């Protein structure tokens, strides 16, 4: 597994899960699963990566919602305590709008937006991992971008300042 792939996994979970600790836990799980699957599966690794991460993200989100969003009851590894800031954001970036849309919508088409525009995975891989047509993927991307735009417009959530 390359540095870029590990980074992609960590960033993906950071953006699609509502909490940093959950994202770290999901990242650990995804890396473990992918290391095991890599030997057995003959699938393109990037496709496998997208599939695995999407599945874990869905599961973690479900767990988070079933635990009434109370992470105090969740037992995270102690090693996480030493990592105060897992991801470093540019000073100009605010993820408040993104978090808001994630909380409000939680739509899986946002996953596509992360894969395609944040992590810049090739569309073909995303299509293969999504197991739907190219047109469907493009339509969902269009929808999610439009949704994000509506949150960012004047009167909605601001961006470009620290959250």
């Amino acid at each position, binding site marked *: *597994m*390359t*540095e*870029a*792939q*590990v*980074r*992609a996994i*960590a*960033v993906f979970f*950071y*953006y699609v899960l509502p909490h940093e600790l959950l994202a*770290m836990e999901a*990242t*650990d799980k995804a*890396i*473990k699963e992918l*290391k095991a699957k890599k*030997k057995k599966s003959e699938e*393109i*690794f*990037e496709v496998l990566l997208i599939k695995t991460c999407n599945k874990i993200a869905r599961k973690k989100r479900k767990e988070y919602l079933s635990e009434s969003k109370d992470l105090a009851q969740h037992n995270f590894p102690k*090693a996480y305590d*030493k*990592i*105060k*800031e*897992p*991801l*470093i*954001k*540019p000073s*100009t*970036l605010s*993820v408040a*709008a*993104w978090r808001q849309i994630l909380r409000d919508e939680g739509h899986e088409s946002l996953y596509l*937006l*992360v894969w395609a*525009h*944040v*992590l*810049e*995975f*090739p569309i073909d891989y995303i299509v293969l991992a999504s197991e739907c047509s190219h047109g469907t993927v*493009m*339509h969902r*991307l*269009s929808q999610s*971008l*439009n949704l*994000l*735009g*509506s949150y*960012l*417009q004047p009167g909605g959530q601001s*961006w*470009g300042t620290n959250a």
Partner: protein
Amino acid sequence: MPKVHLTKFVCKELVYDYLTGALDASRREKFQEFLNEDLELKKKLDRNKHALQYVGELKKIELSEAYQSYLSEAHDLGLVEDFVESPVVSHEEKAPQSNIWSDFWSERGELLKLIRRTTEALSLAIVVFLVVSNLPKELFDFESKDKPTLLLTDKNKVGSVESPATTHGIEDEDEVIADDINEEAEETAAQVASSEKKETPVEKPEKKQASDSSSKNLAANVASKNADSSSSAAVAKAEEKEPAKKNFYLYRSIIYVQDLIAVSDEFLTYLEANGAKKAGQVKMGWEKNRSRYFHFHIDESKREEMEAILSKYAPFRLNRYDHWRKTPEGKMRAIVEIRQKAN
């Protein structure tokens, strides 16, 4: 250039394609025409542009060194280099990595796989061995399936044995031994048939013991005879070294006669008159097909007389073969088969 017809509705759906440059030139031109006319479409385009710019900011995020080293240690990833600035995962990344740690772990993975497979194979072999070793030996003793159970009738009469002498008149000893087995099989078959009429007081454990030892001794005899034929000097040395080992013999022959009944009756009369006793399981002169079968004990001194009687009808000589079965001292065991000569 083909004329493209676009509606306002379709143009709204094509905003994403317009922004990502996925529209062809004619559609792009048409889209721009609508954009100048439709304020709502322009607003949507601005919103999407805004969103794309925001997403462009999102991708500038990087892992902290602490998190990077944690992931490297926790998953043995060997992430020793700085993360690349571009997060693009290209096809080239599928090429083998020149990372020492990756190579080490991949090699170790292969080694572990090899060890696992070897262990599985060994376990399987052990299981098969245990299963096979616990199965009854009769299942694998294919030769003895055709063999009868040999009965040792003269066991109690064992005394000292005659001195070993050279074997003569043997053309194919293995064939003779095989014949002997067949003869005894026939005898056993006859005994089974006769035992239905009257019970013979034969101890079963003895039978089994005799059967087991017979096959072993037969094999030993074949081996020893092969050794004899290969080197007589070696045999002499072996005899010197093992004086305790004594040989026993079986005399046997087959004679073809014109008048089966007359000759066999004469021979039977002679045997009965000279104290011969049946040695096998069937009576002396047992009839089978077009022959009569004599398996008996008699004084060794009568050998020449017997040969003389039967030589009147056809050339006859009793051939001597090594045999595992013990013979009482001064006695000889013989099998003579008188067969009807074909016309």
